[in-house]
Every structure is written in C-alpha cells, then in structure tokens.
C-alpha cells in the first residue's frame, strides 16, 4: 500500500518484479541500478539476497527516488521475488504491501508453461494476501527477445494478456538493457496516475 508521509512530504511506492525462475527479474534491477541517471542520493544500493550461484534467495531490493509530485518526493522500492517453486511462501512475504507489479515472462517457447503457471501463482498469492490483481497496476515484460527460440510477442500476449482488461506489454532483452527502462517508466506512470486520481477523488 502506498505510504504517504505528510510530515516529510514523501510518498513510497512498492513495485515487485514477478516471474518464472531465471526469467530476468534480477537482471532488470541490475540494469536499472547500473544505468539509471540519478543523483547519488536518489539511487540506493542494490541489495541482493542470493545463493552462491546468484539465484535470488529472498529478494533483490533497489530504492529509487524521482522528481517531486505535487510537492511530494516520490520513492520507489523495487523488489524481485525468487522464482523457484520452493520459495512460494517467500514470494508471499515480498508481495505484502505491493503497489505495482511487473511480470517478467521468459519468451522462450519451452518456458511458456512456466510463465502461465507463475502468473497463476502470482494471482493466487495475491488472493492469499486479500488482494486482487484487478486493483493493482501491472505491466508485462516479454524478456529474452534476443534468443533464437523466442516465441512471438503476440503468442505471449495471447497467453498472458488475454484478460478482460489488457495491460501494457513490452518486449525486452534485460541482459542488453533493452526494454528495461520502458517497462519501469510505464509501471511508475501507472502508479502515479492511480495515486493522483485517488487523492483527487479524496480531496473532492
């Protein structure tokens, strides 16, 4: 849930990168951390709790600040979840208080079933937390487009973006940094829009 601190004029929003194992969630954050243009104080440290083989164990965390919104400094907390089946409870913990989601799908043909299962798992975990995906802004990122066995984006849209309301989707190659910032900018825009719309409604 967005935290609005009236005293310090700060807004905190939590974005979680969700997706199948080794799909590119951590790579997204690494690229953002490495390449984002931001003042030193606006970009926090990338904290990665991972195994020796660099598989996310608990989460990756990157705090980012952006320009002021209506007099408020906006802080985004970017998290990734571990993708493996064994860490489902961990994913629930990381999902708590989520404001926005980026679903990072692996575009390889052989990963389609995992993509669909992980998406269903995400919905299930949100329901466990008494949340509904309908109420949470999210975007889809079709990663690993650079690989030769990448399925067409239209196929991924058919599998993952075939709900009543379609959401923005982005092709990406996170390892090359392609599509990473486009994805991030869209989800932050959606979150800020939701926040401003809701605050306007409350003021009225």
């Amino acid at each position: 849930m967005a935290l609005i601190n009236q005293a310090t004029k700060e807004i905190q929003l939590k974005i979680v990168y969700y997706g199948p194992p080794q799909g590119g969630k951590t790579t997204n954050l690494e690229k953002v951390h490495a390449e984002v243009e931001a003042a030193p104080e606006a970009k926090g440290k990338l904290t990665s709790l991972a195994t020796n083989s660099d598989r996310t164990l608990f989460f990756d965390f990157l705090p980012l600040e952006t320009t002021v919104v209506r007099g408020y400094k906006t802080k985004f907390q970017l998290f990734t979840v571990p993708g493996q089946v064994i860490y489902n409870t961990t994913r629930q913990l990381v999902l708590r208080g989520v404001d926005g989601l980026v679903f990072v799908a692996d575009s390889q043909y052989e990963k389609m079933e995992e993509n669909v299962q992980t998406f269903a798992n995400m919905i299930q975990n949100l329901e466990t937390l008494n949340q509904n995906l309908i109420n949470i802004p999210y975007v889809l990122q079709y990663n690993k487009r650079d690989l030769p066995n990448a399925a067409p984006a239209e196929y991924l849209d058919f599998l993952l973006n075939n709900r009543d309301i379609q959401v923005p989707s982005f092709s990406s190659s996170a390892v090359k940094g392609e599509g990473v910032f486009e994805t991030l900018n869209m989800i932050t825009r959606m979150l800020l829009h939701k926040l401003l719309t809701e605050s306007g409604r409350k003021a009225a």
Partner: protein
Amino acid sequence: MFTLPLLINEDIAVVDTALGEFVAVSGARLALFIDCGGFIVTQQGEAGELDTTTLGALAANNFAATQAIAKIIDDHPVTSLYQEGEEHSLLIVSVRDFGFLAIVFASELGVGSVKYFAQDTVARIGVQLVAAHTRAPDEGLDLATLNLADTGPLFRRRAAP
C-alpha cells in the same frame, strides 16, 4: 559455483548419525541440515505435520536477511539465530559456508542447552563436508538448480526403433 560439495552415501550417513545423536541427547524435536539455498539435505527427528520444505526456505531467507543487516551495521557475520516461540522455538546455526542446522525444540527446553549440544554436531558435520570437498574439490551440488516446476526432462518415451 556450488553451494555444497559432492556428497556420497558415506557423507549423508555421517550427517544423519550426527543429527540423530543430537536429537537424542538434546531432546530437540527436529534437526534439519539445510543448504544455503534453503533446500533440505537431510533431517532427523519428528517432523509430524510441519512443512519442512517451507521451513527450510524461510530459515535460509531469514539468515540471509540477518547477514545483510549485519553488513549494514558493520558487524561481524552472524553465526546463529534464535527465534523464541511460546510452545516451540527455532535455533539456526551456520555450518561453515555449507549451510545451516535448523533445530526445532520445545521452548521449555531452553536455547542454552540446545546450543551447547549443537556445537559438537555442527563441528562434526563441518568436518565431514570439508572432507567431501577435499575428495572432489572441483565437483559440487547446487540444489537450487533443481527446478521442480519443470519435470519434463525427467522421463521421456524412448524413440521408436
């Protein structure tokens, strides 16, 4: 990079014996040896209805988060964690760089005695894993690479002749 050295039956037998003796002498309910990724290598004691798979994963998460906090506050790495419950408590002790011993015990037992008996068990397991590593220094295991969601390659129909 591997989280565990290559383990053979003899290694597991030694770890099982150490855990079994620990459970018997300390009165703990359950002792699990978990790798750094939270995967259970072996366990002894009475698991009952406990979801040990999730317990292992969360214990590893907890330890990793605590180590990160220790780094932030410029402290030495943590070697043990204690969670006090009303009926059952949990003690997690690191076994060198190989993993953890996660011990579930009745709270009335007291963490001091459990920790005391765990020291020897941790040392015995550590010695055996070092021996395993020395036996095959370039080989190892990373249980995190087992992707349980994808069992497709496990069994395949033989191609027709």
